[in-house]
Structure formats: structure tokens, C-alpha cells
């Protein structure tokens, strides 16, 4: 998801995966994928040899990023997104010529 940010926090062990936000273990009712992701996380507990151990899991997401965005397009923006949209300096909607 965003392993570079997690790594910056200094976690002991890190599993990276290219799943979208909101669905870290897999899609709803995809028990096989969910179990495989959890198993890979837990196996790193035993296989990691030192701090900062990182594994990138090979799972591919079945949708493109555009499809993921489209599926969640009616989700309201977060408060921070709204704040950023409403007040970019000098770029208030409706004021530009």
C-alpha cells in the first residue's frame, strides 16, 4: 500500500503489498487471498533476521487504479481533502478569471 511511509516510521518488520487503501487483505469474500496475505505477514515474524526486514508480496490486484477510483467515486472526500480543496492560496473556486 504505502510501504515507504511505513518504513520511515521504523517498524521492526514490514510486508508491502499492492492492494488499494481500504482493502489491505483482499476483496470482500476473497478468503483465499485474505488468508494468504495474513499468512505471509505472520511468516515474516519467524523468518525476519533483524530490524527493518521487508518483504514485497507478489499479489496482483484484479482492478486497475482507475477502476479502484471509479468504484469509490461516491465516497465523500476526507475533512483534510475538503480543507485543501477549499483553501488553496489564491485559487478559490470562482475567483479565477
Amino acid at each position, binding site marked *: 500500500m*504505502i510501504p515507504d511511509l511505513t518504513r520511515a516510521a521504523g517498524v*521492526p518488520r514490514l510486508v508491502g503489498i499492492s492492494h488499494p487503501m*481500504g482493502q489491505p487483505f483482499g476483496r470482500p469474500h476473497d478468503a483465499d487471498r485474505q*488468508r494468504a496475505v495474513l499468512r505471509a505477514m505472520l511468516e515474516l515474524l519467524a523468518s525476519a533476521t533483524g530490524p527493518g526486514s521487508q518483504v514485497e508480496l507478489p499479489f496482483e490486484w484484479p482492478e486497475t487504479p482507475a477502476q479502484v477510483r471509479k468504484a*469509490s467515486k461516491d465516497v465523500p472526500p476526507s475533512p*483534510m481533502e475538503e480543507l485543501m480543496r477549499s483553501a488553496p492560496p489564491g485559487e478559490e473556486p470562482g475567483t479565477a478569471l
Partner: protein
Amino acid sequence: MRAWAARLEPGLIPFTPLAKPLRECTVALISTAGIACNDDRPFDQDGERRNPWWGDPSFRAIPLGMTEKDVRLHHLHIDRRFGEADLDVVLPMRRLAELVGEGVVGRPAPTHYSLMGYILEPRELLEQTVPAIAERMRAEHVDAVALAPA
């Protein structure tokens, strides 16, 4: 967020080797999807709406066996419908039970946990919430934890 991460000072990364085989370990899960049981206090979404720089730094305990029927997600930065359709998308307690059945893991902890995934000021999280979770985990003899972002 990347600019913020670049400002973090690299510190000593903690590391505790697993003291026994995974098949003998009690495992707990933590999700940052902001999950709260229906009979528990919801995470404070209104506080974040009033001040988008703030995120609720508290935690909720999720007893083993809770399902999507028993909880709501409160994280304001994700599509919560996936985790509310199938809790194992964010907190895979049923998948953990299956791994116990397969002999991969010793046993599931009686209690699992959730946090909000958006906390820009982590002081209270680090000084109060995390030690409180750790104390409960010690009381339940948890050997290892899998923490998943949402």
C-alpha cells in the same frame, strides 16, 4: 505525507526475535480502519470534521468472533464499504482462525484492536493508547501482533 516522512529522524528500529515457533504463538491483530463494535463508543469523526488536522487517538477492543454485523468502520479517508461488507478485508479474525486450524499459528488472542489510521499528532497515541493496548495483550499472553493499515 511523504514530505512528513522525510522529516522523521531515523531512530533505532526495535526488534524482538520470535521466542518460539509460530505454531505455538498466540497472535493478535490490529487494524487502523477505525473499527468499533456497535455497542461501543464510535471513533470521533465529528472532532476530525471540526479540525482536519486532528485524528481520534483512542483505540477500540474487538473481541474474537465479532463479524461485519457487529461493527462499524469510522476511518474518514477510505471507502469503508469493503470492510463493512466483510470484516476480514481489514481485520481477518476468521482467516486467523483458519490458520490456527491448519497448524500455522498456535491460537488467536481473545481480543483484537483497532485504531484510526489518520493521526497527524501521535503523542497521545504513543504515550497512552499503545501502552494500554500492550498491557492488555500482555494480560492475554499475546506473543505476536500483525498490524495492518487500512
